[in-house]
């Protein structure tokens, strides 16, 4: 017996779900492409970051999606590995930043910025950033 025989209203759900995901993917790709083409240090590029921030902030606090449950406890020893690695990364970045971020001692920003300069790469990076934001909202 088919699912639509048991639950007539569920017949269109899978198709609707796929259509919604396809639409969301198209919007995400289109927005990433448009935002990736904006010149840095402009009001438009600033707005292209603030707009998804405002939208995701509103969703996170106003109408949050079904969230992945957070662990009730955290293993301190296990978490400390992350803490040490992240602190070391910040320290490494700070040492380069404080020394002026010269060619001979570049900061991570100085290294990444030229890599994401081409439009397609920049758009892909923005897409990953947006997906990361959505993943945070779901947590």
């Amino acid at each position, binding site marked *: 017996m088919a699912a639509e025989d048991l639950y007539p209203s569920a017949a269109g759900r899978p198709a609707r779900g796929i259509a919604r995901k396809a639409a969301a993917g198209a919007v995400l790709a289109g927005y990433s492409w448009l935002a990736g083409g904006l010149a840095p*240090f402009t009001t438009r590029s600033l707005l292209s970051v603030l707009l998804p921030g405002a939208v995701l902030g509103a969703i996170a606090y106003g109408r949050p999606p079904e969230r992945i449950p957070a662990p009730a406890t955290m293993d301190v020893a296990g978490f400390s590995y992350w803490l040490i690695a992240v602190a*070391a990364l910040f320290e490494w970045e700070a040492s380069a930043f404080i020394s002026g971020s010269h060619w001979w*001692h570049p900061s991570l920003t100085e290294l*990444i910025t030229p890599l994401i300069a081409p439009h397609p790469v920049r758009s892909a990076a923005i897409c990953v950033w947006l997906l990361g934001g959505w993943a945070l909202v779901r947590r």
Partner: protein
Amino acid sequence: MTTRIITMTGFAGLLAVLAALEVLGRRPGNRIPTAGQWLGYLMRRPAGRLLVLLGWLWLGWHYFAR
């Protein structure tokens, strides 16, 4: 070896460590949490959620708006 290469090696090494921690965290029975788990733990309270989301927004501003 120039200081530039040492600096770049340091960044690459630290990023590799972060990736390795994520891989280890996904193995069953491991004490190391995944990034999603510890971020989720930090976001249990509204203040933690706000800080994490602001960090995400700062990343976007830092790399894409300036």
